């Protein structure tokens, strides 16, 4: 039972928590106030814990047959965890944010567990009832946290290891781990008389192995290929000329997947470029498209060899005096394939001295004029 004193402190703790949340939501980036409120909350929470723990002088507590304190109290892990938390926070302040956060978590967890255990042990003289009471309060907190931490450790460690090693080794390692887990299960299942300590020992070794691997992986960093990919941004630049871009054209899928109707179809037939505009029957060498609008055209390559369709659509001053030509293009596609090109032209044709046009790099004298009214 909660005595009046502890109820008061719990109430104040809850209240300050609510105030804190509201404050954080409403006042953007005011760290000082948040810290102050959080400190108040922690302090009052601590008092609440003390009050709970000591049952602050409520003489009615417990059953009359045996005074609450007469129940022999078992050993407890929680003071240790709490202390470790404090130490870790101190270390974290100097070294790394993550250590600080871990310490804070340990502190809160240890503290909560400690308080509830203390409270339950003095609830009655009945050990079993006390245990059940503790379980009722703490299990909904404990189980999800244990489960999440358990899963989280594996997931994080594992992905760090994988990132550090090469692709092939990764797949092999992954197979081995899966097989090991399975084998471990089978091993334990067929040896029902295995000593508990052996089982626990094996599990601890496995867990330590995974975590150690994870830490090692994280400190080694990502494998070189990934670092390179990250820096170069392999897929983010198009090359609209004759050459075949190493990454952009690699493994290109040339199918048209868009179902939205394209404005025109542009075919490259036996070295000749021709366009068919939607709704008009004749072939044309001039198409009209709207300004500032996403336009799609289909490019069909009906000439032997790999070609791409490139659109020239004006010039743009990127810096003082530096003018760059604007291009957009499909990938290199093989004969018989088709691809969609989506583009948007922001300036009308009259804004450019050179006319806008579609052309095929490497093929002279073949182009389709693009008119933007």
């Amino acid at each position, binding site marked *: 039972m909660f005595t009046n004193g502890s109820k008061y402190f719990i109430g104040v703790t809850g209240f300050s928590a609510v105030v804190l*949340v509201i404050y*954080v*939501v409403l006042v953007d980036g005011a760290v000082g106030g948040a810290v102050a409120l959080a400190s108040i909350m922690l302090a009052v929470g601590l008092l609440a814990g003390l009050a709970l723990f000591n049952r602050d002088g409520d003489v009615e507590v*417990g*059953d009359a047959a045996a005074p609450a304190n007469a129940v022999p109290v078992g050993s407890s892990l929680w003071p240790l965890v709490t202390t470790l938390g404090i130490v870790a926070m101190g270390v974290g302040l100097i070294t790394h944010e993550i250590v600080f956060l871990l310490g804070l978590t340990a502190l809160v967890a240890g503290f909560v567990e400690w308080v509830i255990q203390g409270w339950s042990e003095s609830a009655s003289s009945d050990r079993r009832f006390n245990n059940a009471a503790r379980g*009722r309060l703490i299990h909904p907190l404990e189980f*999800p946290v244990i489960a999440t931490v358990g899963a989280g450790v594996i997931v994080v460690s594992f992905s760090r290891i994988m990132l550090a090693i090469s692709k092939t080794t990764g797949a092999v390692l992954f197979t081995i781990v899966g097989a090991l887990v399975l084998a471990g299960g089978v091993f334990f299942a067929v040896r029902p008389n295995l000593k508990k300590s052996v089982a626990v020992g094996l599990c601890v070794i496995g867990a330590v192995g995974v975590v150690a691997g994870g830490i090692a992986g994280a400190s080694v960093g990502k494998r070189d290929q990934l670092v390179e990919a990250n820096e170069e941004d392999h897929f983010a630049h198009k090359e609209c000329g004759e050459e075949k871009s190493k990454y952009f054209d690699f493994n290109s899928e040339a199918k048209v997947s*868009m179902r*939205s109707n394209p404005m025109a179809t542009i075919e490259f037939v036996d070295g000749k470029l021709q366009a068919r505009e939607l709704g008009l029957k004749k072939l044309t060498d001039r198409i009209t498209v709207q300004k500032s609008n996403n336009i799609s055209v289909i490019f069909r390559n009906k000439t032997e060899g790999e070609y791409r369709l490139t659109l020239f659509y004006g010039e743009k001053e990127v810096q003082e005096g530096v003018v760059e030509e604007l291009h957009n293009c499909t990938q290199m596609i093989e004969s018989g394939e088709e691809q969609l090109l*989506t583009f948007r032209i922001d300036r009308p044709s009259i804004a450019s001295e050179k006319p806008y046009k579609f052309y095929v790099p490497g093929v002279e004298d073949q182009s389709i004029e693009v008119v933007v009214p």
Partner: protein
Amino acid sequence: MAIIEQPAPVGAPALPAAPTPTRTYGALRRPVATTGWKSWVFTVDHKKLGIMYGVVAMFFFIVGGIEALLIRLQLAAPNGKVLSADVYNQMFTMHATTMVFLFVMPMAAAFANYFIPLQIGARDVAFPRINAFGFWTLVGGGIIVNLSWFLGGAADGGWFMYAPNSGPVFSPSHGVDFWALGLQITGIASLTGAINLIVTVLNMRAPGMSLMKMPVFTWLQLVVQFLLLFAIPVITVALFLLSFQRNFGATFFDVSAGADPLLWQHLFWIFGHPEVYVLILPSFGIISEVLPVFSKKPLFGYPFVVFSGAAIGFVGWGVWAHHMFASGLGPVSVAVFSIATMAIAIPTGVKIVNWTMTLWGGKLRFTAAMHFAVGLIVLFTIGGLSGVTHSVAPSDTQQTDTYYIVAHFHYVLFGGAIFGLFAGFYYWWPKMFGKQLNERLGKANFWFMVIGMNLTFGPMHMIGLQGQPRRMYVWTEARAGEGFFNIAFWNMVASIGAFILAFGVLLFLINVFKTTRSKEVAPLDPWDARTLEWMTTSPPKEHNFDAIPTVHHLDEFFHRKYEQDPNTHEMKQVATAEDILREQEANADKHIHMPSPSYWPIVLAGGLPVIALGIIYSIPVAIVGAAIVVLALFGWSLEPSTAPDSDFDPPASGDGTKELAPLG
């Protein structure tokens, strides 16, 4: 009557004094209150939850109604100045959202919750705590959706919120965020409710009640719950995509990234069309109960009504694109969906024939409930027929997004769904509260509503056919046409009608108020009813039935009261409702354990709006919300559904069910 009936201590030995949980857990002990606000807030009783659903739905009906009146005020004359364009756009969006998601659906859920267990002879639903969770979730969702009014403006994209107009650029206020997350939350309520009710109907019928002996209301609700079960996840996906776009920078509907805005329309209408049946079928169910009772005849063609209901449920999945005939789907899709849409008119027509034939040859008593039921047949027929005119796709391209559509769906949803719900109010009120709503006021209520409704929505046919699009914050005289009966005239009539309609609804509220204050007690069986819910006290006991009845007939209750004279073939009354109740009480079951109230449903439901607010304003708050949800989930699954004996004060020594992690 306590919620938890303790078995009588038969010669129990004196136990040693155990620590009392009341003192140990203090405020955290399991709630067991049977009176006061706690008995409502923590209840898992399907009847209390049904009433609470009803109250919340009624509240939102009034909110939605006020929104509607403001809309009609704005449109009464050309160049209306009552609302600004921005507020008007929010108004019609929220009017539809409120009426669909926060009034008709919860009101249908109220009736389902209250009457399905009673109609199938069960003591509660299958998962009582999930039931409570569903209700509180709905409340949370409703609050989130409407909170936007006070936090920078509500959603303004129309209730179907077409992309890309709902994207972050085109609707920059937080309105759409609140809308999407709020509906996501009410979706959870509907989904859990659907699972709960389906399991209840399939698993908990009284002995002898085969599926084809089930009351029609329960049957059609079963169809509705299946529709919800499969439709809700689709809108969930759509809303996730929208939220991810708005809050996390995804590009699902961003055309400049190559997205196709029609994806939203498909997802929305795959949900949205079954949703239409979700709104209308419960009312069909209600009047299929009301008409036979007041005609003193069984429902004509019961299997046809049931199977056509199921058929509507199936075919309803194949017609979503008829909302998109003008979207540019291509002629083949349009043709297919056009034909499928015509097909769905057939089972609907079957129902109208069956209702009319139920009246035919009956002994009709025109109570208020009967008025609304007959009103539904007529008004729904009008709505149904105008529906046929736009199943013809080319014709629809002239009508869609005009007031003609507004007229159509108000005839279907107001004249259909809402009239059905009102029939339900008048019919079931004595059962739920033990008092009868005033019949004279009820009939006045009906006439004002029917006249107001026809004046409001009838002219919208004209307005629409003469080319006034919907969702316009102003209309101009320049396009109103000439002559006296022009668009301006009809707009004015519609606005006047809206106020008559509102007055009709007000009469209902007055009726409720008067009835609540009066001391007059309703008779046990005021309508000479036919189904099981009338076989218990009014209002029913906590455990519904003292003895679970064994069912032999469709309309079991009627057949217990009446028998056919073998010689004259006339129906003769052989027992009264009181006789039947007395007999039941005499053979009461022993040891009835009802599920205990619980904190967790409301705590769990309370976590969801916190997550929503967190997503909109600050992610850490969302994490707090998620923590509440996880805590509540675990608290819930570790708590037995019926409280253990030690939770009683004083502790009891019964054989309570203590089981591991029950879901419900």
